[in-house]
């Protein structure tokens, strides 16, 4: 009986994640992989994602400090990052990654910086939201 309000709250949080566009259908895929044998699968994947992608973010940051930009390398990093992000269904992050790659392809350094800032924001926001959701 006591669990219902919690469950409801959880459902609301989850719905908002979708409605606000933070996650997409891929996230549902992850949820479907969760079962009794893997009760915390989604959380585990997300944790791994944040751990793994932290490294890539750092690499990108370091690469953005070296002028002139090595667009090829930046694009390669972002390709990796985008892959991971799309696998967990991080919609906004993925969209921003695509933008970043566009800027890389067109050699738009300013655009890259801006896009990266935005990306980091989305990344952090998602992390907070997911963190709250999992708690």
């Amino acid at each position: 009986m006591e669990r219902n309000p919690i469950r409801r709250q959880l459902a609301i949080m989850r719905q908002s994640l979708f409605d606000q566009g933070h996650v997409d259908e891929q996230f549902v895929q992850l949820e479907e992989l969760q079962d009794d044998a893997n009760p915390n699968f989604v959380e585990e994947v997300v944790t791994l994602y944040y751990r793994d992608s932290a490294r890539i973010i750092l690499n990108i940051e370091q690469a953005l400090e070296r002028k002139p930009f090595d667009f090829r390398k930046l694009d390669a990093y972002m390709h990796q990052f985008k892959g991971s992000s799309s696998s967990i269904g991080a919609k906004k992050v993925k969209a921003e990654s695509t933008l970043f790659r566009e800027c890389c392809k067109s050699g738009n350094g300013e655009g890259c910086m801006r896009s990266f800032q935005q990306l980091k924001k989305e990344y952090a926001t998602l992390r907070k939201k997911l963190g709250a959701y999992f708690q």
Partner: protein
Amino acid sequence: MPAKREITFETELFGSKTFLIYVEPVFSKAGETIGINYMGIDISDQVRKRERMIKIREEIAVQKAKETELNRTIHITEETMRAKQMLATMSHEIRSPLSGVVSMAEILGTTKLDREQRQLLDVMISSGDLVLKLINDILDLSKVESGVMKLEATKFRPREVVQHVLQTAAASLRKILTLEGNVADDVPIEVIGDVLRIRQILTNLISNAIKFTHEGKVGVKLFVVPEPPFAKEGSQNGSAVSTANQSTTNVPKEETCTSSQTSSDQRGFHGKKHEGSCQDRSQSERGTPVTNGTIDVTEEQAELPETTVWIRCDVHDTGIGIPENALPTLFKKYMQVSADHARKYGGTGLGLAICKQLVELMGGRLTVSSQVHCGSTFTFILPYKVSLSCDHSDDPDDDLSDMDDHGATDDDATAGFFQFQPRTLGSLFSSNGSSRTQNLLAHNIGYVNSHKINGFSENCYSFPTSNGQTKEMDLVEDACSVAEALEISPKPESSFSHSPDHDNESAICRDEHHHNVVNAENKVSTRDVSSCSETSREVDVKVKITEPQLPAERQGRSDSGFQSTLNSSREASNSISKPKILLVEDNKINVMVTRSMMKQLGHTIDVVNNGVEAVRAIQYHSYDLVLMDVCMPVMDGLQTTRLIRSFEETGNWDEAAKAGIEKPSPSSDSLQPDCTPPKRIPIIAMTANALSESADECSANGMDSFISKPVTFQKLKECLEQYL
């Protein structure tokens, strides 16, 4: 014109004489030179005095300089002493609250914490421990240096100490190394010494060895040596005979039986391989050859209540070695081999200094010999007292009858050989999630009782999932070859689980064996016989005892489909009857998700992280389906597919060899159950682009189809239905 000069003449009669010669011309009134005045004054004495004065002044100057230096040194020394004192005091003061912090952190660890909190706490505790250790080292060093250190004299058992130290080291070992301990039989069961310090020295040397060794083994050898020349105690007459006096165990076997020294008797009888090897030991020891033959057993020693035995301990490793130019400064405080070393390996440089101080305080010597890239051996020799009136209540005469009892009860005490093989536990994975070098956390402890040589029962090895690396392959094969000797598997298919890890003991383990054995059967045929016999020799002497509490843990963890390094045990058993699927993907998250999806579809998969590993995997095993990521490091999916297709068309791996992948050993070709023409494996590209040109490229390179990322359950299901 007039000239004044000093000229020295050598005279026969008077020696060296110096005259002041004054010559001046004499002029006539008209100015003509008509003659000279020639005057000579004997100034020999003055000259001598003068010279002495100079010397004296020099000496005074030198003295003064020395004094100043000395004063300065005294001043510095005083300062240093004061500083040291302060450091010691401070360290002491720091230690108490610091250990308070660490204790509290540990207690906190026993309360309920969420994952993030626990991670933070772990960092806290390990940092705190490190600092504590550092402080203890500093305190120890200053204690030893200031002469305040008092040595204990307690009875202890060297074998137990060695085993314990190795066990502790093995438990926290995070690399694949073999730890070995070897205590010679003539080392007494019990000796008297400062066990705490000795343990400290041993731990320090062993942890150094482990730190600087990345592969191979670290070993400890303990054996008795005759009294070394540097020892000043005892009745040293400088003669070879008397140097053997102190080392009672170097007595050859005839003496052992007849000597009145009960201590050596005890040793002689208590060692399991007794007299023959005692002889061998004494032959092989670093003793002077004289000692083997011409010893007069010293009657004096028979009277002594205690005898001193010199035991030498070698800690050797197959590590990075120490360059020659670094050897002299190795034991100096705060010195590391180089600044790079310090940065790369950490540490404070105090350990060896402490060891050396302690060893020398105890009357021994610490030396090192090393070869760069080969390994190093640190040796310390210490004297130990052996009490003749110790717990071994037997008299020499009763030994024969008591031997059986001893054999039964003192197994641990007399076990002289320990080996700790590296053992990987898939259930414990490193926190930074590196999937490649997934390492180990627990170790199996193998005991050898030299008189209990069983064939080993279960040799469960598990390996990290660095798929395709030949080293791991070798390990597996060696293990297999030995496993083969014991178990005969009827399984027809060859299957190789890339990360066979042991979550369950019995059934799965046996399945593992079967897998490994099948591989072995196929591979060992052409494998070097030597490597086979080598491992079987090595392994024959081992009796593996797996720790009992681990299986339950691993069982639980195996249920979570985690990182690519963790393969659940079901894979091992399932992959026999199920289709073999290979996933070639470098992104960890994708691997995790894909694997989980495949699991839901009822399949288990093997994972490799790049094209090269994929080729290797296919070289050695047959797969029914390959899911190939297109973008990967080292070798991308397109090239990999081309190489695989070339193999399928030509039947050989030449193209792969050109790309730098070595061909598999001949026997593996016979792995293909269909023998001659290799079957075409369906290869599905997993591409992030999913544009039409990408699809064309995929099929141009030999792929059968593609799945666009992100991978969904539905896509996988359809793909499997189509191609399996």
